[in-house]
């Protein structure tokens, strides 16, 4: 593939400053079961190439699913023409420094291949999951699904880049809706497809699968009988499967340099963070240490290089509460003069790379879960995201969870349903009062981070310990 793509670039007829081709092949399988019947059994073969050309300081692109040499050669011409037509209106005169030469490879860690579990076997496991979720007649719906992806990427360029990456991905989900008259309650395995990782079928079914299935079914019933979360300001303790969302929405997105530079203002929005805040702003409490880390084995958005060839590297975004670095690739770094990371990423071959999160993790603190709860006189402990909404500057947010426990005098007591909380990002992170230790740290992922024009859904990973926040407004649902 490298020789084929390199020959296409070498034989290009346009006088561009730089030409690159990123070819992607994605082989995917998905299976979904609902209420003991198959909902979906699919396989997908997708391939195509993103051709990018830099001319007169402007990038143009042309993406095609026709990988013949003639089609790619035509795409180079088209991308060149796009660049020339827009060059007099360029938002920034880019140089080839934003596409340095890079070579190397990356393969997801895995012990079993993606053929290790046949579709028939997978269907049987998921049928069994649905069967075991139905712990009562009050279980109105059971769902279980699994997806695998084998994604190969080849990146070549006119300045000699040659990068090969292969991602093996497993994404699984199960959940149930319990119903008693007008009351319905959802309980899932840490949120929709939150169990998304890099690896092979060694990840599923895991050793604790059946225990988790049983617990999800029983907790759905438990929620039917639970009181509503009260309306008050109190200590809020968040489990890692909610911290994932909290980190994503109120740290990841506001730190994206393209949002701060204005590219996203018409769609996803801007940010309350300004370029001059990097290096000077106290983002949150001193307990807050946040890393951009695409090198964590098995985390969903790990890679060796981003989609323009920047080598992946772990970097602190926030250290001791202080904002150090933005989430911006080489283009945003050249435009903003703010230190960034290797995060120019595209959802697949038919979208250009933009600034994205990869793995954004909150580093562990020094408290065990029991110690944290013991320190809370009154509070609410919440698990598993079910609702999320935040403003276009990533300031005012309201998030909801599936399951909660009241904390009274240092102990978890009654179960609560419909737990929600709302706050404003800087106030919230400054109220961080306890950070759990490594024993509380868990890692999840999502394939559904949406952003960009044209829109792109991309995979991100988030790891976090349990965290506690003081004086947060919590509330419940209708009685």
């Amino acid at each position: 593939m490298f020789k084929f793509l390199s020959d296409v670039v070498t034989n290009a007829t346009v006088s561009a400053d730089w030409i690159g081709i990123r070819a992607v092949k994605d082989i995917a399988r998905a299976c979904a079961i609902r209420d003991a019947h198959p909902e979906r059994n699919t396989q997908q073969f997708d391939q195509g190439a993103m051709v990018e050309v830099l001319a007169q300081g402007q990038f143009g692109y042309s993406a095609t699913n026709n990988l013949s040499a003639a089609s790619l050669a035509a795409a180079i011409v088209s991308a060149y023409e796009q660049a020339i037509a827009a060059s007099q209106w360029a938002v920034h005169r880019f140089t080839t420094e934003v596409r340095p030469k890079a070579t190397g490879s990356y393969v997801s860690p895995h012990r079993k291949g993606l053929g290790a579990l046949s579709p028939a076997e997978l269907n049987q496991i998921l049928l069994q999951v649905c069967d075991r979720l139905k712990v009562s007649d009050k279980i109105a719906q059971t769902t279980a699904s699994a997806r695998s992806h084998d994604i190969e990427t080849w990146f070549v360029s006119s300045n000699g880049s040659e990068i090969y990456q292969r991602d093996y991905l497993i994404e699984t989900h199960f959940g149930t809706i319990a119903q008693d008259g007008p009351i319905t309650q959802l309980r899932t395995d840490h949120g929709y497809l939150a169990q998304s990782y890099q690896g092979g079928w060694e990840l599923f079914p895991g050793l604790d699968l059946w225990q988790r299935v049983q617990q999800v079914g029983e907790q759905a019933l438990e929620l039917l009988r639970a009181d509503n979360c009260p309306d008050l300001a109190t200590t809020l303790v968040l489990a890692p499967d909610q911290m994932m969302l909290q980190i994503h929405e109120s740290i990841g997105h506001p730190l994206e340099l393209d949002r701060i530079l204005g590219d996203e203002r018409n769609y996803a929005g801007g940010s309350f963070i300004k370029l001059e805040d990097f290096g000077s702003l106290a983002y949150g409490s001193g307990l807050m240490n946040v890393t951009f880390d695409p090198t964590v084995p098995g985390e969903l958005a790990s890679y060796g290089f981003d989609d323009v060839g920047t080598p992946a590297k772990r970097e602190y975004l926030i250290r001791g509460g202080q904002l150090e670095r933005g989430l911006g690739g080489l283009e945003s770094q050249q435009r903003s003069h703010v230190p960034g990371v290797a995060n120019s990423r595209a959802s697949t071959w038919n979208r250009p790379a933009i600034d994205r999160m990869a793995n954004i993790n909150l580093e562990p603190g020094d408290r065990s879960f029991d110690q944290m709860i013991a320190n809370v006189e009154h509070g609410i402990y919440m698990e598993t995201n079910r609702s999320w909404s935040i403003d276009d500057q990533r300031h005012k947010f309201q998030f909801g969870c599936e399951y909660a426990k009241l904390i009274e005098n240092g102990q978890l007591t009654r179960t609560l349903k419909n737990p929600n909380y709302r706050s404003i990002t800087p106030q919230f992170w400054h109220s961080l009062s306890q950070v759990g230790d490594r024993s509380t740290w868990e890692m999840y992922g999502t394939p559904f981070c949406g952003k960009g024009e044209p829109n792109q859904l991309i995979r991100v990973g988030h790891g976090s310990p349990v965290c506690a926040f003081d004086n947060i407004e919590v509330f419940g649902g209708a009685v």
Partner: protein
Amino acid sequence: MTMAVADNIAGTTPIKENVFGQLADAIAQTLTSQGLSVSTHFTLTVSGENSQFTRFNRARVRQTGQVDDGTLTLTVMQSERTASGTVPFIGEFDTDWPRLKTTLAELQTLVPQLPVDPFVVLPTGSATSRTVNHGEILAADAIATTLLSPVHTLDFTGIYAGGLIFRGYADSAGQRHWFESTSYSLDFSLFDAQNRAVKGTVAGNQWQQLHFLDKINQAKHQLAMMARPAKTIDRGQYRTYLAPAAVAELLHMFSWGGVGEADLQQGNSAFGLLRQGKRQLSPKFTLQENFDQANTPRFNTYGEVAPLQLPIILKGQLVNSLVSSRSAKEYKTQSNYASRREHLRAPEVLTGTVASDQVLARLERGLYLSNLHYLNWSDHPNGRVTGMTRYACFWVENGEIVAPIENLRFDESLYHCFGEGLVDLTDFQETVPTIDTYDRRGLGDSRVPGILANDFTYTL
């Protein structure tokens, strides 16, 4: 300004349509040659585009390019079992058929190993349709100059997306459908120096420069109103006017755990209480599917053609859910040929009595919301939705705009704003185009009026 594309597309799409038909015929012939044409059923769909995307920031080009993409999805059904496979669609039979033939063979091997699916929908009927909407849109090399010259002094940001979109359907029963449309959308925002913004959208099959300039002028006028000092609104309940674009955002929630039959049956709907008679909506509120003049196919992935109009909520009563043939089979009810996902494809909310020049007077005192942002259920079974105000939103007193507002978070039930809190709707509708581009450019639009509601709840 150069108008183009239509001529190019007119030359290439018959080829794509023909190749798609040849591929469907080839599958049928293969099954016949295997002696399986009676026992094995199939559907074949195609979805593709040849699109231009140009992205703007500060009246400059941030990214520009084009995407030529297409996929074929083959679904094989035999002995109450089914599976699907998707492969690229190039539009060249010699390239596409070998991949599709391989997929057919793989699915034929896979399907017998799968569990029985009692609700599998076999293709039946003899429906055929062909819809072609070509127009004149901007040529790729004219986009930057045409759009940016009139706005080069403004902080203009957004995206132009335009070109060909096509969808096709064929099955073993002989049904055939084809839909293609040359269209564009320009979704933009204008910002002022204080980062306050207004939103505008133009879309259609014909680029109309004067219409674009008119939209820009409207946005500039609105932005000038945003220059007044912003008013901070305390949390609480306020009489509120939601402009059509804001209503369209609320309408999206009806397709997400809303009016689909499967969601209603499985306890996953905000309108379960409406069906059970435990909550009510206003008799002033009527929602229907209306495919008349909608820029989206009427056929679904089962090859069924939806009725031209279908009332969903009629004067506050849930008279129809969206029922796919799969749900019809499972829940032993009648299909109304909804999509597999049972989402609204051509929603229309009927009008009320508030004239455009009476909106502020009827609001009298409260909030005027042009747009909403980032909606999500906060209490799904009770229809409660949270989200943010965005863009041109104002505080109104004595029937006049007093000041723009700082963005507010709302948290309100659809049972309130379309129920007891609904005062009236406007006597006009606006067509709000689908502009999303996840995976590929979307199709369709919503036809919605503005609504006037009492005691709309703001929480942060």
